């Protein structure tokens, strides 16, 4: 706990020797969720990010970290602080789409770079895209598109789909349907923050479906899975990684075993960067890394690669350095599409038990070198 406190005290400077700096110091503002219900995601992003900074040994990258409490207005306030008071060059860290929508447009309009380690709302990929906005995680639809593709490939013909009634939930179902060719047995939008799914499960039971796709992030997903497994409905489930990731999986427990979920990363992905990342993350923080930690780690490495190539004050050169994505990602091949979102493979994983710990095993590639749907809407 003590180390956690130390890390979070305001300004953090990596106290390592410089590796010879061709460029001036760069200041990074990280706004992420560190308190309240969704804190786990933010903490993982932060820890992954700081691990990469530490490993780079660079002392010319200063990171300022603040807690947005998952409130949009607080995030906006912090962005103002980062820009006006801390005078950062680059912003990053936001977990939630709605907070990203509140912060990103005005930050990029003020000439700051924004590197998204998690949220990828469709607006920021399409009509609202910006040359200074780079998404290092995924466009929101991607993981769900992969789930649709997987369900299709697995031969499901009639799927019941559900998601919370908010924009990311709608993106999820649209994304799934984009790649699923079968029939939709039923489509439900649940209340955001709902924790009892008995009514929905009853509808699934009655719908005559052969499979279920759901997108319910955070506690909603835990609740759904527990209740689903106790309901006697035993249709196969497909879901995005968010409900099956390392942090949350232990809380779901047995109910998740065998479920197939889609993700652009898994800890068993076979590349040297990933192996080293998993090992060092475990050594540093004493827990297995999550999807979010890998995204934080990749975001930092992208930044480090750009800092090594160009001075942040030379905006065009720095942007080009970012765009080239010249870093070793934990996911293997990684490049940016024309609207600055990842082109990457998305995998199907299965939840297994390793000793006492629930975790995922990669079983197949759901979508190979996948870009996103909104490139043609983006005019930079």
């Amino acid at each position, binding site marked *: *706990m003590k180390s956690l406190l130390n890390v979070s005290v305001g300004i953090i400077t990596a106290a390592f020797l410089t590796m010879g700096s061709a460029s001036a110091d760069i200041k990074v503002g990280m706004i992420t969720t560190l*308190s*309240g*219900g969704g*804190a*786990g995601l933010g*903490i993982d992003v932060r820890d992954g990010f700081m691990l990469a900074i530490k490993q780079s040994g660079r002392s010319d990258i200063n990171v300022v970290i603040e807690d947005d409490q998952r409130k949009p207005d607080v995030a906006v306030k912090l962005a103002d602080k980062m820009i006006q008071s801390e005078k950062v060059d680059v912003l990053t860290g936001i977990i939630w789409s709605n907070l990203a929508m509140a912060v990103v447009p005005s930050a990029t309009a003020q000439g700051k770079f924004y590197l998204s380690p998690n949220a990828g709302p469709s607006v920021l990929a399409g009509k609202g895209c910006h040359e200074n906005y780079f998404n290092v995680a995924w466009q929101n639809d991607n993981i769900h598109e992969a789930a649709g593709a997987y369900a299709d490939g697995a031969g499901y013909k009639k799927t019941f789909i559900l998601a919370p*009634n908010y924009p990311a939930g709608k993106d999820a179902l649209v994304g799934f349907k984009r790649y699923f060719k079968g029939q939709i047995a039923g*489509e*439900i*939008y*649940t*209340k955001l*923050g709902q*924790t*009892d799914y*008995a*009514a929905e499960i*009853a*509808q699934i*039971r*009655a719908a005559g479906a052969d499979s279920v796709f759901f997108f319910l992030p*955070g*506690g*909603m997903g*835990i*609740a759904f899975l*527990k*209740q689903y497994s*106790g*309901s*006697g409905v035993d249709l196969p489930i497909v879901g995005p990684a968010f409900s099956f990731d390392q*942090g*949350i999986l*232990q*809380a*779901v*427990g*047995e*109910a998740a075993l065998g479920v197939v979920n889609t993700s652009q990363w898994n800890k068993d992905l076979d590349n040297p960067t990933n192996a080293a990342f998993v090992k060092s993350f475990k050594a540093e923080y004493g827990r297995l890394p999550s999807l979010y930690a890998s995204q934080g780690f990749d975001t930092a490495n992208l930044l480090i690669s750009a800092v090594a190539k160009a001075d942040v004050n030379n905006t065009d050169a720095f942007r080009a350095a970012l765009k080239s994505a010249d870093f070793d990602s934990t996911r293997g091949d990684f490049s940016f599409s024309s609207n600055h979102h990842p082109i990457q493979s998305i995998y199907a994983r299965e939840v297994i038990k390793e000793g006492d710990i629930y975790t995922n095993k990669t079983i197949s590639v759901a979508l190979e070198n996948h870009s996103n749907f909104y490139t043609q809407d983006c005019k930079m």
Partner: protein
Amino acid sequence: MSFVLIVEQILNGLQLGVTLFLMSAGLTLIFGVMGLINLAHGSLYMVGAFAAAAVAGAFGSFILALIAALAAAAIAGAIVEISILRRLYRRDHLDQVLATFALILIFSEGTRWVFGSFPLYLDIPNYLQGPVMLPGGIQYPLYRITLIILGVLVAIFLGLLISKTRIGIKIRAGENDREMIAALGVDISKLYTMVFALGAALAGLAGALVGAIQSVEVGMGEPVLILAFVVIVIGGIGSIKGAMVGSILVGLTDTLGGVFLPKILQLFIDISTATNVGSSIASMAIYILMGAILIWRPTGLYGSRL
């Protein structure tokens, strides 16, 4: 819409109702006896769930976990009552709101400090796993049936406690007249602590029972708290019977509204609009219910006239 589905949804509504009852019984009792608005009641629910998860994780026994939830919430409640809240009984409701709001902050972040930022694991025991067949070919989870029965038992227990025992007499006297009960020679502060701990224990029990089928995480108490307030206002503040009726009404409205409103709207407009509009009205349904009841009866169904 089949008969089976309708019955199943009614059972779901009942089950939500009885869990809400566990929360709101304590809330309404504390308000009725001490006149305290306790926003931190949701935090006690959370404390119960976390205690249960911790004990279940360490010893693997669900029964022990439930006992731990009762005990931890009761103790947390008693500590808070003795150290802070008893100073506020004679104060304005506003001071109580601020103090218990502050307690929410302390409880939430304190819990996160102790247990970390990720949800904890708490599952239902094997012997309560899986569905059972009810008459009429209805398949329904055993655990939820157990919850309904347990909730009804607690309601009976509370009813007997208040109508038949000495403590109950004191509680009823305390509701009516604080001076009188002091004059009767009852140690009023002990009584208050007891009532508060009882309410807290019920909330903790609810947290543990619900935590097993939902997620045990920081902030889990606040949405339930709001629902519980809706319940006690509908039922009439201070009335256990009102809390019971209010819980069932809210449980049924919330569950059935979410399911049937979109279906009903589909008869009139196209499916996707119906789903959309239906689910947004459904999410407002309990508040509309509460508003309507308060317009009809400004002090709730069983509330005493002010």
